[in-house]
């Protein structure tokens, strides 16, 4: 199973799929806002833990979730490491590399840790959203909040074409492996061939897709999941559904804690 396919299939088959997109969007963005606002490491960890648990519980699975969390982590860690050398005045650790003296500072280290927790908390909020809600539905809801059409259309196309790229990469890689393309000494050449052929083939695929979409009068609108629901009543009856109340309560608590700053 491809990575893209599993990711996309979570969004349509998780336990939270019945909850309205607006609620999930609201919950995730509010929590994200609190994560950006608060200075308390405790709150950040609470957010990270809660959001991750919900996402994992909804059907993603802990193993895959942690794997996905590693992706942003590889970008974050190096930059935070650098931060520890730049800020503050109280040295923690000094060492020299090729004649250069490097000093790790306490303040920088603390700032780095806080930043790290904040980023992870924020990422867990967004992960919650993208792993429980199909992209078409997120865009559909954002459109209702006056997001420009062009942004929605572009986002969807970019999202779709990422998968086209991944697919092409996989099939080209297999073709190269089958002809021993990645044996020692040939790696760089094979990689450059992979990239160039990927570009050509992806363009070709993108053009085919564009034609097929055009043939069906595509005007930038992606059908949302609501077209699959038999009974419309279900989603309209409760203005305040239990899930929404729960979400609001959780966010309210967080907000109070963040503003009070007690923890």
């Amino acid at each position: 199973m491809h990575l893209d396919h599993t990711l996309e299939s979570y969004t349509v088959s998780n336990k939270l799929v019945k909850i309205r997109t607006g609620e999930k969007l609201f919950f995730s963005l509010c929590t994200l806002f609190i994560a950006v606002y608060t200075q308390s490491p405790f709150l950040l960890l609470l957010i990270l833990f809660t959001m991750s648990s919900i996402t994992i519980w909804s059907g993603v699975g802990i193993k895959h979730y942690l794997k996905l969390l590693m992706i942003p982590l590889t970008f974050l860690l190096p930059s935070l490491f650098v931060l520890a050398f730049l800020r503050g005045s109280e040295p923690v650790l000094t060492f020299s590399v090729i004649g250069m003296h490097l000093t790790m500072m306490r303040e920088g280290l603390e700032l780095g840790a806080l930043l790290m927790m904040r980023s992870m908390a924020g990422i867990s909020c967004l992960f919650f959203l993208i792993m429980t809600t199909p992209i078409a539905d997120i865009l559909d809801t954002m459109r209702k909040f006056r997001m420009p059409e062009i942004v929605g259309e572009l986002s969807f196309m970019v999202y779709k074409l990422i998968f086209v790229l991944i697919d092409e990469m996989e099939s080209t890689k297999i073709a190269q492996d089958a002809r021993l393309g990645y044996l020692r000494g040939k790696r760089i050449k094979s990689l450059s061939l992979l990239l160039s052929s990927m570009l050509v083939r992806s363009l070709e695929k993108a053009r085919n897709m564009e034609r097929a979409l055009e043939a069906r009068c595509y005007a930038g609108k992606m059908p949302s999941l609501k077209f699959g629901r038999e009974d419309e009543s279900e989603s309209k009856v409760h203005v305040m559904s239990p899930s929404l109340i729960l979400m609001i309560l959780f966010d309210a608590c967080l907000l109070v804690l963040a503003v009070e700053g007690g923890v």
Partner: protein
Amino acid sequence: MSGYKDGEDIKRDAEKMVEVQDLWFSYDKKKWVLKGVDMELKRGDKTALVGCNGSGKTTLLLHLNGLLIPDKGYITILGNLLSYTKKALTEVRKRVGIVFQNPNDQIVAPIVFQDVALGPVNLGLSEGEVKKRVKRALNEINIGDLRDRKAHELSEGEKKKVAIAGVLAMEPDILVLDEPISGLDPESSEDLLNTIDSLCEQNDNMVVLVATHDVELVYEWADKVMVMREGEIVKSGKPYDVLGDEAVIKSSRLAMPRVLRIYKGIEMAACENPGVPPRSVEELLKVMKGNLWQ
């Protein structure tokens, strides 16, 4: 929607659903891919366009709903000359539905019903109407049970059907299928052909055009056959007349259907009064039995 209603009258009157006159086209302005194609599709026809790879079939099909603009020539759909303004194109794309060769290029949404709804949603139809059309399109080709499935989990044959449903949801008058059974196993292709056949029976007014290089399929299925060679239609007519023409078939890098080849063999050897040429293996067997008993 009023524009569509007006057009409805024209459609009923026009015997010729599609007319292509002297169509010339080139991708790179150096080599002609289409060299003066003339073509006519009549209401209720099951027409097949045969030709080897690279003979220009797909290029011709892409012209039928304005995806490509010809360098020279005219296309008339339901009595209206095809023009290339945005409004006219939307109109013509509602009428002419193209099912592409590779369903993976065509299916963009993660769930089946979502993809089938794509056309109607983009036409700006109401939620109720969209749901109705999705349901009808899925039922028309008997895949109602696939509605909530994930598109990437489907088999190749099922994907083809979903792609067809996506086009049917636009309620086209002219259904164009590009290589509908290439890449399918025998059972799936048999199944798909039956689906297309029952579709034709349900909609008397629909024109179905199939482009393929599979002569066996064409001989058994089509009412009318057109042979394309290097951007030209070299012969068109009844399946027996066209596919039985050895010179045309050979020069077009195609092969005569087996049933026809065997039949021609016996016809020359034994039969005095062969009657109607057989179109399928079963019919051929009947002819052979009849002759052996004589």
